[in-house]
């Protein structure tokens, strides 16, 4: 009985850890592009590594306690075992508890520094490496995306941008709350109706390619169908399509 218990426990731990490790950033099956994805994947790996170590240590310790102090034939009850109607004696070492608190605090604050650094990067389009900037207005609606380019031309569900460009998106909504998400860029932003200011995100379009766009906030019956495509093309192709006269 106890052996099956131990085996089952060990199996559980292995499955869990395997699950956590495979939840790596490189598993984003819908593609990877841009400097945000690079930074994100690095930060995510750090979190995964530290989270994995913490999980392993806790599980190892808990497993050891369960094994070592399992009830065995001929064991005596511990002297301070619960007795009906008696208030159990206080048990615990403040020094030890403070050490755990401090340990968790240090780990978390270390992670926070990485986070704040990255949030500042997200905030500032001038961090982009590209030589020029293009601003596109993005408007969500049930159930499509509308993109308005600097020239005034519009496209629907397909956002086309040129390479070597920092693309700034000003995102809002026409009807209900949507969320503009491009997993390949590791970016998303809420598209909120009635906002006095549109929400802004930016990304560097580095290589050509096509990546899916999703709506990631429940927006109604056809939420599942509210999908689009981000197309990154050579600058010449972009100019012909959207920068010049008619689209």
């Amino acid at each position, binding site marked *: 009985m*106890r052996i099956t218990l131990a085996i*089952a426990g060990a199996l559980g731990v292995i499955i*869990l850890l395997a*699950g956590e490790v*495979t939840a790596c950033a490189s598993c*984003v*099956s819908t593609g990877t592009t841009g400097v*945000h994805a690079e930074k*994100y994947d690095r*930060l995510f790996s750090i*979190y995964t590594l530290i989270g994995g170590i913490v999980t392993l240590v*806790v*599980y190892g310790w*808990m497993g050891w*306690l*369960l094994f070592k*102090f*399992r009830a*065995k034939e001929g*064991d005596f009850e*511990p002297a*301070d*075992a*619960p007795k*009906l*109607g008696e208030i159990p004696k*206080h*048990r*615990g070492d403040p020094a030890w508890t403070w050490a755990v608190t401090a340990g*968790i605090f240090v780990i*978390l604050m270390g992670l*926070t520094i*990485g986070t704040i650094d*990255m*949030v*500042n990067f*997200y905030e500032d389009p001038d961090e982009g490496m590209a030589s020029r900037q293009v601003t596109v207005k993005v408007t969500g609606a*049930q159930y499509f995306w509308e993109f308005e380019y600097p020239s005034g031309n519009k496209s629907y569900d397909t956002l086309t941008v040129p390479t070597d460009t920092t693309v700034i998106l000003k995102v809002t909504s026409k*009807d*209900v*709350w949507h*969320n503009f*998400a491009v*997993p*390949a860029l590791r970016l*998303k*932003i809420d598209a*909120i109706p*009635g906002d*006095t*200011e*549109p*929400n802004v995100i930016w990304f560097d379009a580095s290589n050509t390619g096509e990546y899916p766009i999703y709506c*990631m*906030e*429940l927006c*109604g*019956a*056809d939420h*599942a169908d509210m999908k689009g495509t981000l197309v990154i093309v050579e600058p010449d192709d972009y100019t012909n399509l959207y920068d010049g006269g008619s689209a």
Partner: protein
Amino acid sequence: MNTVVLKRWLSTTNHKDVGLMYFFATLLFGFIGLALSLLIRLQLYQPNSGTALLDWGPGEPGEFYNSIVTMHGAVMVLFFASPLSFGFANYMVPLQIGAKDMAFPRLNAFSFWAFLLGGLVAASGFLLGGAADVGWTFYSPLTSLEYSPGNGVNLAGAGLVLLVMSVTASTINFIVTILNHRKPGMSLWDMPIFTWTMLFTVVLMLVIFPALLGALLMLVGDRIFGTMFFADSTNGSILWGHLFWFFGHPEVYVVLMPELGIVAEIIPVFARKPLYGKRYIIYSLIVGTALSVIVWVHHMFITGIDPLLREFMSVTTELISIPFGVLMICLIATLYGGRITFPTANLFALGAVALFVIGGVTGVFLSSAAIDYHLRGTYYIVAHFHYTLGPVVLGVVGGIYYWFPLMFGRFLDEKLGKIHFWGTVLGLLLFASLFVLTDMPRRVYIYDEVTWGSYNLVATIGAVIAFLAQLVFLYNLVRSLSHGEQAGSNPWGASTLEWSDSD
């Protein structure tokens, strides 16, 4: 059922009776929520699965699916996990502190009936042309008359208002009972840990539920009386977001804390050692309760709010891991020097602690505003909160195995209990495959990305296994009520006073 029995249960104000009614009513809601979850997982088991499963429901397939998702979330959190703990609290808290009954027994009965009516009203939408299909978060303006013309949102709103009435009455009742009705000589520090966690739970509820009530009344005003709180074209959506999440985030601690109390009752009994660091646990709960009301913006990191507020709430969210981390460590440290036995009740309690570690660690990822840019709204989130609420349910179900002999005089069957436990845990472990889907949107009823298929399939297999395990549990429960092994007084050798209760 004859009329005498019926009249007795309809008119009872005894805290144990009310506790038992909560127990059975929440199990009913739990099985409704479970059936809905199975529908969700069957719909998503493969890419392009069609709409055959959804066509029989009211409205378009997408609407029906959304109402299933909405009601699964609302029922499981608000009408199952949290009130099941309240059932135990009704039964155990007065006994644990040596009170004769709750301070206001009739108010207590009122709480139960308002709760039951609330749940039934909210769920009745399924029979009345479509339940609420806007997500349990009820984001505005999708909830407005313009975008949700049906009755579903009205019914859910009415159900939730009834729930808030129930909760408000309950919180006052518990606070007065715990503070004023302890037996002579029992100081606050002497109270068993479950009573402690209930005290923090109800205090927190008293702080947050008014925000939900206010938001709901404004929503009802918009929908029925033509007011313009959220329908206003400027920032109405953000207003809803703040009001809802000021309630919605602490609500998870409202669900969590009683479960921690139950687990902290169970583990010492089966480890035969006193709870490690009870005082540190209580300090942690104080800090955790306080912090829990200043973290809600982590649900709104990408709404374009002030970056300073975002960084502040990012830090508070990471800080809240500390008290709950200390608490988990104390629970595990209790095992040290013990003589541990593993009946089903203890398996559930230990399983709850072990799996909650995963929920906690994956939650730290989400506290990072930067990482949230990618993970928000994806199946990673779904996996994460099923690894927090899943263990919570494990812990509360551990409470069922633990207190069943007290409530019904009989044991639940151990062999069936172990099948139930391992089936549930295996199901939850397979659900971990969803952590990988950091690019799959939540709340979609259909997807065509082939690469997402296998992970969804694994999760669906997990859901089916967990569902079958709950059927074993249901059989065990029904059978043990009349045929379970007779339990003597205090069969587990606990120290708390509910076990000295003689009738």
